[in-house]
């Protein structure tokens, strides 16, 4: 394959990954690394380097829209970014010290886990929780525009959320993914932040988290311009298209198919890692 053919192939695949990732809300990163390693035979270290870069592009692009709507909470985001960036540094450092097989196994488990998380029902009725002293001191409680006006919310279980965020950052640095599913889990389930605020704030945090491990990746030579170029341009194109279509499309069946694909990819990554064929 010539460089031109290879770049075009990777670009087309990345457009598809970015498109599906935006439509289903699962992000492009989770299918990108399996696609590059399983289908195109790319070394997993180059694949996670290229994926990490594309994660910064899509999250910054989407965050630009959400922040303007006043949905993201910049104080919650900033406070939890201390945890995710520290985690990302730890994860990227660990990634440089463990084998490709181990990375592949962890990746497989994370894929299966995020497919499971995406199948969970979303809370229909927003709960009302009392203010928590620590969250109040940290000024994390906020408000956001809802269908019937401005809604106020309180934040709970700050230490638990912070710890989960450190874990999400570690996975992001280890695997070159945004780990949005785990960030949303920490905010929505643990900290009781409204789902809309959780998802948009998670998106807002992903870019900063990924930037923390990008320095380590760059210095280790994981970011190859020839591979990262079609991946970044493709995922960005795909996710922009995806957010355009999102408003009209019925994504229920699509989410179902996509999470099935993710499980299959997860099992394959797990199998390759365990059998040492990666």
């Amino acid at each position: 394959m010539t460089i031109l053919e290879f770049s075009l192939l990777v670009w087309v695949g990345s457009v598809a990954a970015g498109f599906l990732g935006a439509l289903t809300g699962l992000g492009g990163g989770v299918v990108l690394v399996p696609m590059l390693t399983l289908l195109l035979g790319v070394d997993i270290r180059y694949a996670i380097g290229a994926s990490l870069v594309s994660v910064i592009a899509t999250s910054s692009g989407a965050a630009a829209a959400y922040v303007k709507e006043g949905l993201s909470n910049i104080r919650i985001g900033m406070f939890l970014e201390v945890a995710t960036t520290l985690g990302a540094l730890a994860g990227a450092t660990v990634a440089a010290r463990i084998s490709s097989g181990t990375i592949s196994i962890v990746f497989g488990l994370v894929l299966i886990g995020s497919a499971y998380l995406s199948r969970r029902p979303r809370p229909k009725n927003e709960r009302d929780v009392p203010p928590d002293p620590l969250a109040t001191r940290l000024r994390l409680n906020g408000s956001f525009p809802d269908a019937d006006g401005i809604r106020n919310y309180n934040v709970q279980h700050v230490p638990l959320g912070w710890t989960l965020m450190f874990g999400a950052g570690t996975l992001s640095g280890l695997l070159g993914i945004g780990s949005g599913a785990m960030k949303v889990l920490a905010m929505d389930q643990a900290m009781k932040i409204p789902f809309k605020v959780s998802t948009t704030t998670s998106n807002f945090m992903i870019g900063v988290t990924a930037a923390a491990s990008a320095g380590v990746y760059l210095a280790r030579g994981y970011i190859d311009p020839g591979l990262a170029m079609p991946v970044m341009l493709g995922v960005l194109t795909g996710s922009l298209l995806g957010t355009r279509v999102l408003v009209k499309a019925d994504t229920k069946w699509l989410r179902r198919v996509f999470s099935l694909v993710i499980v299959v990819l997860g099992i394959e990554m797990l199998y390759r890692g365990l059998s040492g064929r990666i």
Partner: protein
Amino acid sequence: MASERGWNDRRMDVVISNLLRFGVLLSAFVVLFGAVLYLVGHDHSHTDYRVFRDEPLDLRSVGGILRRALALDGRGIIQLGLLLLIATPVARVAFSIFGFAEEHDRMYVVVASIVLLILAYSLIGSAWL
């Protein structure tokens, strides 16, 4: 007090939003420009990503990337675009420090500064020279 803070937060949201959009667009254009030079120069050569080799040292550091980009090397320019992309969220955090200071929110000036320090440590500590 509350309404004043809300107004300032909104203004900060808008500036951050524009900053992120600008950073992503700029880096995408630089990457695209580098891609054209790279593909025109190498259209018939072959590549192999199956085996991990260390990238050449000058594509792994900020100084080296700048030198390659200034020499109008396609791979160097792509890498410069990716650096701009990595710098976008960093710039967002740096701006937030300024924004929180404007709102006299000392606690969050400190929080944002810690995040910026961690990012600086990652980028400068591992990839500067």
